[in-house]
């Protein structure tokens, strides 16, 4: 692994297993301060398992995960959030029986600065005006796109330094996907580093600075996003999933 001074996240030789299945096989990757890094790959290649490991959801994995130079491999999930890593999980993970406002407030659970929380809530409503109209609505009654917006806004309420996004485009209409990706770029401009997992390679690589391609638990290619878009393997992965 190259040593990188400004790497906010460094993963070395990470392996994740489920009983007999080895889902992630010793991968190494990093995210530099301020970057959007795409992690693309077909279904079942181990992307979600990787993100879950970063968030501390798998305890019997191997390898090292460092955040801002500190080893977080064995930290509990809530401590990882407090350290500055938030995740928008696959399938959005909104708490269906809670209102939009309750979901957003819980996003700030690790924070104590009440005044700034109120300000951040306002900026979330500016980022996603639709959420403002639906404050009192139960999260589970909203459309998929609105739930994705809520999930992203909720993750931001923790004021993360690193945001992990697991397939934010999943199951959404192209126009909504575009809206979500615009928001992702804006969030990044505001200083949040992003690790973006996607099957929609095209979308992901147009937003990302760099990217990794994963296949059956291993990283097979790593390059700047521009090069990846013209890479043959990526083309095949991309073609493999779009119609």
């Amino acid at each position, binding site marked *: 692994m190259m040593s990188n001074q400004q790497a906010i996240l460094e993963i070395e030789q990470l392996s994740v297993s489920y009983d007999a299945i080895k889902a992630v096989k010793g991968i190494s990757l990093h995210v530099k301060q301020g970057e959007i890094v795409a992690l693309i790959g077909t279904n079942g290649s181990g992307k979600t398992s990787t993100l879950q490991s970063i968030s*501390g959801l798998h305890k019997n994995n191997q390898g090292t995960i460092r955040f801002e130079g500190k080893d977080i491999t064995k930290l509990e999930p809530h401590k990882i959030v407090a350290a500055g890593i938030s995740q928008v999980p696959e399938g959005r993970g909104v*708490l*269906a*029986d*809670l209102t939009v406002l309750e979901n957003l407030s*819980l*996003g700030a659970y690790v924070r104590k600065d009440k005044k700034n929380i109120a300000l951040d809530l306002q900026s979330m409503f500016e980022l996603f005006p639709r959420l403002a109209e639906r404050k009192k609505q139960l999260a589970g009654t909203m459309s998929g796109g609105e739930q994705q917006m809520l999930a992203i806004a909720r993750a931001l309420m*923790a004021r993360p330094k690193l945001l992990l996004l697991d397939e934010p485009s999943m199951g959404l209409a192209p126009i909504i996907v575009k809206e979500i990706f615009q928001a992702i770029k804006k969030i990044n401009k505001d200083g949040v580093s992003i690790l973006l997992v996607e099957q929609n390679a095209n979308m992901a690589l147009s937003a990302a600075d760099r990217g990794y391609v994963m296949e059956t638990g291993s990283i097979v290619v790593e390059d700047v996003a521009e090069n990846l878009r013209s890479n043959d393997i990526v083309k095949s992965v991309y073609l493999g999933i779009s119609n």
Partner: protein
Amino acid sequence: MLFQQITNGLTIGMIYALIALGYTMVYGILKIVNFAHGDIYMIGSFLGLFFLKELQVPLFVAFIFSAVVTALLGITIERAAYRPLRKADRIVPLISALGVSTFLISVAQLIWGTEMRPFPTSFGSKTYVVGSVTISEIQILILVLSCLLMVGLHLFVKKTKIGTAMRATSINLTNAALLGINTNRMISLAFAIGSALAACAGIMVGIYYNAVYPTMGYMAGINAFTAAVLGGIGSIPGAMLGGVLLGLVEALAGAYISTQYKSVISFAILIIVLLIRPSGILGKKEINKV
């Protein structure tokens, strides 16, 4: 007669509701039935008796002391008997629960003996007549204190940050953890609150029937669990509603049909409700088989 039965039914229904809350809060988060909960209630009752009789504290202090100690007991039981089995097959914590239940009953028998013990308090026996209804002081206490506790719990889970985090944990443990919620702490809290409510119920029942004994948690536990399922297990308002309904049905069935068949009638109603609404009256999600 009718109003008298309604009063009596509400009294016992409130008790069921308080105990049912413990079943439902734990089930809501961990999806396990804490079959030792009835025995936690029994220990709470004995502790109340102990503080009242041995330490001679005032009744309300006995309530507080017993609630606190029983809450700690609940937290300890979760740590020792359930947490190590979090990833195990679902039958395993069930067996562990039966072990804890037997353990608690044995401990109570060792310390306090197997005999039924009276509850030595002058409070509770005085009665008032309101229209056609005779209501005792202890019944008033049960109705009022139970309502206060339930309103308090409702406000806690709905209005406070920690209460909302507890609901979040109950909806989805993993997603709650991803928000920075210490889910193990929420689980401890659910056990603590459930056990404290059961302790209060135990003391009130001890006074109401003037009897405390090591196996008192058995029937109370079954009835309260029935109430939780009737209302929709996992649902807090469901446990309250289920408890009150079950108490009313029992009292009315006992008065107008037969005391011998009152349990049969409550179970028949449970089965009918579950046939119509498998997840209980206020339950939402599909119930996983226990």
